[in-house]
């Protein structure tokens, strides 16, 4: 999992003129290069030398497999029938996109993404506020306590949630029997809605700390003078929040939403452990796994993966477009 803190112009960069948030490997500003002194140029070169190997490794481990997957997706190819490999163009894509299984997995994945990100954003913001406002004495232990779920391996937390809700070994049914609809005979994993509820709850529990950490970074960047000025002007807590704090941390919120949305969209572990995709809980990553790993249908599986990748790109595209506008807006106001 990548975890970058939202880039606002806070770190003293080597090149203060360039767009914040663009590291080595990003688009460099050629016009500006001419104006740089020898020292700056040497530092830039050093930067490339230091980051270059990592950049090349990145290309090797991400770009190459992506290209390979795109290539394989054009074939009908089963690992256990190597002799019958056959070029079928976009045939695999036609099979996938005309199949209800793909669409139902896509809707399930989208549902999980939207619900978990929305809930996490609210919860995460509340936790970020608590961490931000907490007294110095309890700040450390509080942050640690909030971050613990995020430190637990997803497979482990998935098993913990599974056993808690399991009809045979779980305690949830007896603890919450007073709630309508819950009794000792409720089998959470036997139908889609209840199974998805547990999967999403586990996902939210596990990754809310991540989003709250990103939001805390954003919160820390809101200048105190602004909130103080608002307070002097008689703004209520809610008005400060709505008119000062949230607009000033929009970039952090967008980064948090983007990262979590991408993560949630690629959900695998929780579903794999709890239901293995049974009873309407199939998600896209699991569908790709089932085709290429279980069925050993490399062509079909690659095509599912490529489509999954395209979905991720679309989410990125939408989010980054929004994100850029906000970032520019925030800077313009400065």
């Amino acid at each position: 999992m990548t975890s970058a803190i939202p880039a606002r112009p806070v770190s003293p960069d080597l090149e203060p003129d360039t767009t914040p948030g663009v590291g080595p490997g990003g688009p460099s500003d050629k016009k500006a290069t001419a104006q740089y002194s020898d020292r700056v140029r040497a530092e830039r070169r050093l930067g490339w030398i230091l980051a270059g190997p990592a950049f090349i490794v990145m290309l090797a481990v991400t770009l190459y497999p992506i290209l390979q997957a795109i290539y394989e997706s054009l074939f009908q190819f089963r690992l256990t029938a190597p002799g019958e490999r056959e070029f079928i163009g976009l045939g695999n894509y036609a099979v996938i996109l005309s199949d209800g299984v793909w669409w139902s997995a896509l809707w399930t994945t989208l549902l999980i993404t939207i619900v978990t990100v929305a809930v996490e954003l609210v919860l995460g913001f509340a936790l970020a506020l608590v961490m931000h406002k907490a007294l110095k004495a309890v700040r450390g232990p509080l942050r640690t306590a909030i971050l613990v779920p995020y430190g637990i391996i997803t497979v482990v937390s998935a098993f913990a949630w599974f056993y808690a809700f399991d009809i045979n070994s779980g305690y949830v049914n007896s603890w919450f029997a007073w709630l309508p609809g819950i009794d000792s005979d409720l089998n959470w994993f036997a139908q889609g809605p209840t199974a998805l509820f547990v999967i999403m709850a586990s996902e939210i529990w596990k990754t809310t700390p991540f989003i709250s950490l990103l939001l805390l970074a954003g919160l820390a960047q809101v200048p105190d003078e602004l909130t103080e000025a608002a307070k002097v002007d008689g703004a209520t807590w809610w008005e400060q929040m709505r008119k000062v704090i949230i607009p000033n941390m929009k970039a952090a919120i967008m980064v948090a939403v983007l990262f979590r949305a991408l993560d949630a969209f690629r959900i695998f572990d929780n579903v794999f452990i709890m239901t293995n995709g049974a009873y309407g809980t199939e998600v896209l990553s699991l569908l790709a796994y089932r085709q290429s790993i279980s069925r050993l249908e490399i062509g079909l599986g690659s095509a599912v993966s490529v489509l999954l990748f395209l979905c991720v790109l679309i989410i990125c595209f939408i989010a980054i477009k929004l994100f850029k506008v906000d970032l520019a807006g925030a800077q313009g106001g400065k």
Partner: protein
Amino acid sequence: MPTRKRNSTRNRSRAGTVASVLAGTLLLSGCGPADGTKTLTWYINPDAGGQADIAERCTEEAGGAYRIETSLLPSDAASQREQLARRLAAGDSSLDIMSLDPPFIPELAEPGFLAPVPDDVAESTTQNVVEGALAGATWKDELVAIPFWANTQILWYRKSVAEAAGLDMSKPVTWDQLIDAAAEQDKYLGVQGAQAESMTVWVNALVESGGESIIVDPEAPSDEIELALQSPAGLEAARIVSTIGNEGLGGPGLATQDENTSMINFQGDNGSFMVNWPFVWPATNGAVEAGTLDASLIEDIGWGVYPQVTEGEDSAPPLGGISLGVGAASDSPELAYEAIECIVSPENQAEYFVSNGNPPANTEAYEDPRIEEAFPMADTIRESLEQSAPRPQTPFYNEVSTGIQQTWAPPAQVDPKGTPEESTEFIISVLRGEQLL
């Protein structure tokens, strides 16, 4: 989900097993003779340490001809297959000996991933081997793997429940009798309704007991495969599954119930009858010894052959187990087969049954006196093995099995008329590459 059920003490001791296997491997590699003795790698499914013991014994007996090292595969059959298939396809030369689940053997044999069995080895290792295990190790009339142990499901029952129902358990009973008995006494029938391999095991046994096979011609290419799910036997199977599901006879947890959870329910107050692998016996005894179950439970447990679908017609119980294969890319297939001859000796099979609870494929091994003591139901197991029928032997087993799981689970959604048809259409279109799985 594991199909080959092992004794559940294993589940608890898995960590210990892993540790001891690792330690064993380290010891072997650390203290092994430096004289260039050929090392054979045996990829084993997790067990209670029995395969590692056999590897050690055979290494000793070989007197320096070879040394067997074990390497642990993932815990469930499907993941074992995934790992082996990928390694075999990549031409991994370390796959000298592999513990293979029979349903996946055709898939590996068809593309030539398994080294051919030498005639003399085939001759010496197939004497007195139960027919089902032999069928499971055969592909296109040729032996492609060596049967090691054979598993089968038997009918477990609570004597008190059978007595109250007035059933004569000395004779085979039918599914309908069990359904009536459980319904009358408001007890749960122990069947496996989870969307997992165990569902295929159940459906296959029902269809086979009705005198049909799920796949009409298992050797047909993928686009010509025909299914017999819509035959009278298939419809009858759907009726039984649907009745148990819709009348709630499997209990509220049926839709997610596998072999282990059905055993736990069977041991509880609502237990009545259950179809399950022999691991139930050591697991229940272990739980009684550990004090988690009442000792009187053991007295109340009886066993018989798998229930019949049609009264008077022998059932075809599920068949599981492990056969040993040799990778085609192995550097020394002859030596590997020599080692296999040692591994599958009747003495080793008997020892493995007593220590790990996995029944021998060789009937000669059942004559060991220790077996009767540890497994009072050994005769029933043997009889069941003779009657058993393998799951569809096809290179497309994964598609067929997953297709059945996705259409037959949960049992409460099975429609006695619609499901066999829906299942057939789904599997056929997946096999023709027109649909995703």
